[in-house]
Structures are given as C-alpha cells and as structure tokens.
C-alpha cells in the first residue's frame, strides 16, 4: 500500500513538472527560460551517453563529437544554402541525421574494440574530427560559422523540451523492451550474449546510432540559439566530462538519473561560471572520482532507494 502511494505521488510529480515546463516560457523571463533549456539539453546529452555506458556497457569519451556533428551539420546546411529562420526545424533534423550517419559508420569499425580501448578510440575520433574542423576553412576553420542573427529562444526551448520528453519516453520504453533486454545482456557478458543468440554487433550499432541522434539534434538547436558555432565549442571534451559526471551522479543505467543530475549540475555551473569556471570542472572531476569510489550506482539512486521508491 505504501509502495503504491509512493508510485502515484511520483507520477503526479512527474506530470506536474511537465506542466510547469510547458507553461514556463510564457511566464518566465528569458534568463530563466534559457537556464531551464540548458538543463533540459544537458539532461538529453547525459541520457544519450547513459544509453551507451549505462545500458550497453560501452564508455564513450568522444560523445561530444555527436553534438558537434549535429551543430556543424546544421550550420553548414544553413550557411551554404543561405537559409533563413524558416528552415530551423529542418536544418536541425539534418544535423541529427548527419550525427546518426557518422555514428552508424563509426560503429562498424569501432566495435571491433571493447572496454578501455573503445573508450580511447572514441576520444581519438572526436579529437580527429575537431582538428579537421578547426583547420578547414570550408568548415569555418578557427573563426567558425555564423548563422542569421535571429532570436530563437522560444523555439530552442521547445526543441529541448520535446527532445527531453522524447528521450524520457524512449528510455522508459527501452527498459522494458526486447531491445533493452538485449543491451543488458551485452553489458553483463557480451560473449555469453553472443553465444545465446544475441546479434551483439547489430544491437550495439543501433544503440550507438540512437545515442548519437539526440546530441545531434541538440547540437543543431544550440547552434541556432547562439547563432554561431566554432570547433572549440562544438567538439569540446568538457561536454563529455559533464555528461559523464551528471550520469554517474544521477545513476548509471537509470532513466531519471541523468535528468536529475543535469538539474543539479547546470545550476551549479551557473553559480560558478561567472567567477570560477575552472572550479566547476574541478567539481565535475571530483564527482566522477567520488561517485565511482563511494556511490557506484549513483547518488540519486541511493536517495531513491532510501525513499523506498522503485528506481526507474
């Protein structure tokens, strides 16, 4: 009886949060809206990293590349075809497709590796893309690319919210799906899974591709929001560090973990960024170490267990 009460309270809270989020841009200031959008975006990014690390068991240090590819895909489409604000959604979609396509191709090669070697490869790959982007004038080089200077915060917020909800629904579904079940066998013992009939390569590539779509779309949206992209921002490893710290703090392999973690960390970064941005990164690094050592399943997960609610 107590459990059921907690569950319905939880659902009510979730619904309430959703309503608040939908109504927010109509009542709050631009600053608040952009902050919440950042939280939503960070949650989506962390969630996508979680799909690979938490559900499939492959730790990626290069996930920022998918964000960057989406950003660049959108930016290049818009600048080379001289598109205007009307193309916003299509160009973002294009960015997502670019990111997914690269992930798909990359997966075929990369999954020949496992564990730490896969991780190092992902970082090498991301940096590889970075060096190409920053040195090639056609991609904007060091100066980057500029988009039409339009004010799109409401649309940016909406895209972030839609993606946030979509990724939540996706992960919630995936947990109970055959796809998710297959991924968890891969995570626990890939060879045993393969011998039991799981087509591991296929599942891994699908997982990687999906985990690239979300950051790609966010990247495309982000580039419209700040109307500018350069390689340093797009392929910044700090993006990955934040994804990792948020997910580990929140709970690897859970649905809400990355989202709750995003809330805490984006607020924290807001507080620290103006005065001491480096210290924010120090906190991220310490979080990673601290969580692995003492709360391997995530601090939020522990809290949820303490509240005797089912960890989603």
């Amino acid at each position: 009886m107590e459990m059921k009460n907690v569950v319905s309270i939880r659902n009510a809270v979730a619904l309430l949060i959703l309503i608040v989020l939908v109504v927010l841009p109509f009542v709050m200031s631009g600053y608040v809206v952009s902050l919440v959008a950042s939280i939503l975006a960070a949650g989506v990014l962390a969630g996508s990293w979680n799909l690979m690390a938490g559900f499939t068991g492959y730790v990626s240090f290069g996930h920022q590349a998918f964000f960057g590819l989406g950003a660049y895909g959108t930016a290049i489409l818009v600048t080379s075809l001289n598109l205007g604000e009307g193309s916003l959604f299509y160009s973002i979609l294009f960015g997502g497709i670019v990111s997914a396509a690269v992930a798909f191709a990359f997966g075929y090669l990369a999954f020949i590796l496992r564990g730490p070697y896969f991780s190092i490869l992902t970082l090498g790959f991301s940096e590889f893309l970075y060096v190409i982007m920053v040195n090639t004038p056609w991609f904007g080089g060091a100066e980057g690319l500029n988009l039409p200077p339009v004010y799109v915060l409401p649309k940016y917020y909406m895209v972030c919210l839609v993606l946030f909800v979509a990724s939540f629904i996706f992960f919630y579904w995936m947990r109970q799906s055959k796809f998710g079940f297959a991924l968890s066998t891969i995570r626990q013992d890939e060879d045993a899974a393969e011998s039991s009939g799981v087509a591991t390569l296929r599942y891994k590539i699908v997982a990687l591709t999906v985990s690239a779509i979300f950051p790609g779309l966010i990247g495309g949206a982000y580039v419209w929001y700040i109307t500018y992209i350069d390689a340093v921002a797009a392929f910044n490893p700090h993006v990955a560090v934040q994804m990792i710290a948020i997910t580990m703090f929140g709970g690897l392999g859970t649905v809400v973990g990355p989202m709750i973690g995003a809330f805490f960390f984006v607020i924290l970064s807001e507080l620290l960024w103006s005065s001491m941005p480096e210290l924010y990164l120090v906190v991220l690094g310490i979080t990673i170490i601290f969580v692995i050592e003492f709360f391997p399943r995530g601090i939020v997960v522990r809290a949820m267990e303490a509240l005797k609610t089912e960890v989603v």
Partner: protein
Amino acid sequence: MSLNENIILEGQKVGKNFGGLAAVKEVDFSIPRGKIVALIGPNGAGKTTLFNIIAGVYRPDYGSIKFGGQDIGGKPPHIICKMGISRTFQIVRSFLQMTSLENAMVGAMFASQSWVGFKEASAKAKECLDFVGLADHANTVTGNLTLADRKKVELAKALAGDPKLVLLDELIAGLNPTEVRGAVELIRKVKNELKITPFWVEHVMDAVINLADHIIVLNYGEKIAEGSPQGIVSDQKVIDAYLGEEYNF
C-alpha cells in the same frame, strides 16, 4: 558426402592452430541425432577448442563442419545459435545480475529464428526451469545461487531456444557426487524427453562411461579413438593417453 538423415553434426578434417601450436588437428566427427556423444581426453587435448570452433567462437583454419547439411564453419556464434546449436560454458557464464527466469528468457528470446516476445519467452523459460528443477528459484538473482544451480540455469538458458544440438562443456566440473547424479539424470532427460542431442565434453570418467552412447577421444588435438564406452575403456591408446591417472573402469 553422406546425406545421412541421422547425422546431425558432421566435421571433416577440422583443424585450428594457435601460433605454432595445433590445438585441433584434422579431427573427423559425426554426431548421430538423438544419441549422447561424449568428447573426452586429457587436459589440453583440444576438447574445448573444438567446441568453440563448432559454436562459432573460433574459425576453423581448415576442414568443414556441417550441421543438418549446412556449412557452419566460420559463422559467428549468434548465427550458429539461431541455427539450432546452443552451448554451455565450462566456467559458468550466466548473466549474474539477472534472475534465473530472465537468464532462461534470454535463450528463449534470442536463440530462436522467429520473433519471440516477453510473454512467450517467459512461459518457455518457466518450462525450462521446471525441467532442470529450478522452478523455486525462478526469481532469484543468479549471482546468489550455488554453483550447481547456476549450471542448471545455464542449461535452462541453452535449452530455452529449442535447439537441436546442445554442446555441454564439462557440465559436471565442480559438483559433489549427489549433484553429479542429478546432472547425469538431466542429460538423460534432455536426450529422452526433449529429443535434443547432447554433445558432451567431460572429464569425469564414471559419468561418461555410464551415460554416453558413443565416445570420441582426443589427445594433443588429434582424435585417437572412437567407439562405444566398452571399447574405449579397453583401448590401449586411450589408456596410454591417460597414463598416470587412475581410473577404475
């Protein structure tokens, strides 16, 4: 090319080298449907390597393997599993974070050629757990089970996909005498009730002599003898291979 309907798995001159070492050398074998065939030999004889080749973990360097007439050499493990050959591992490899039921469901869902959903898989998994005698532990996390029970889970998982052939890699290793008897009974049941052909690597001679219909003996990667249990027991080559070990036949 024998198109014998009764031969479920056939290997001709199968071989694999690791570096300079021939782990398996020109081995022929032919497993009749519905009979229990045991693969024995001293440690390092190449038994598990041969199993791994059949299961798709290794690619044979030469020779051919046919399952139901189809060539399977070099195919990846999940394809071979879907074709109807499942296996257990010598060192138990269950999904330790999952329950026994979930483990068996993996077999039910993914080893089959057709699409199997959660409900179907769950029902089939329950059947298999019943068969191995683990119905009471269906919801126990496998990591918490005893070794004998984990082996049963692994067997249930291997059977859940309705395979035609199941490769059992040292099923009995590490079990006490009571558990051994139980395991031997299970293998007999697999053959008689489920009509699945067990191909069995084993080290415990008593069990093999009593249960197997046919025995193949490997030593240093080569087949040195083959035949009925009585024949093998008195084969001088086999005795020499095991020289130094005491077996009261």
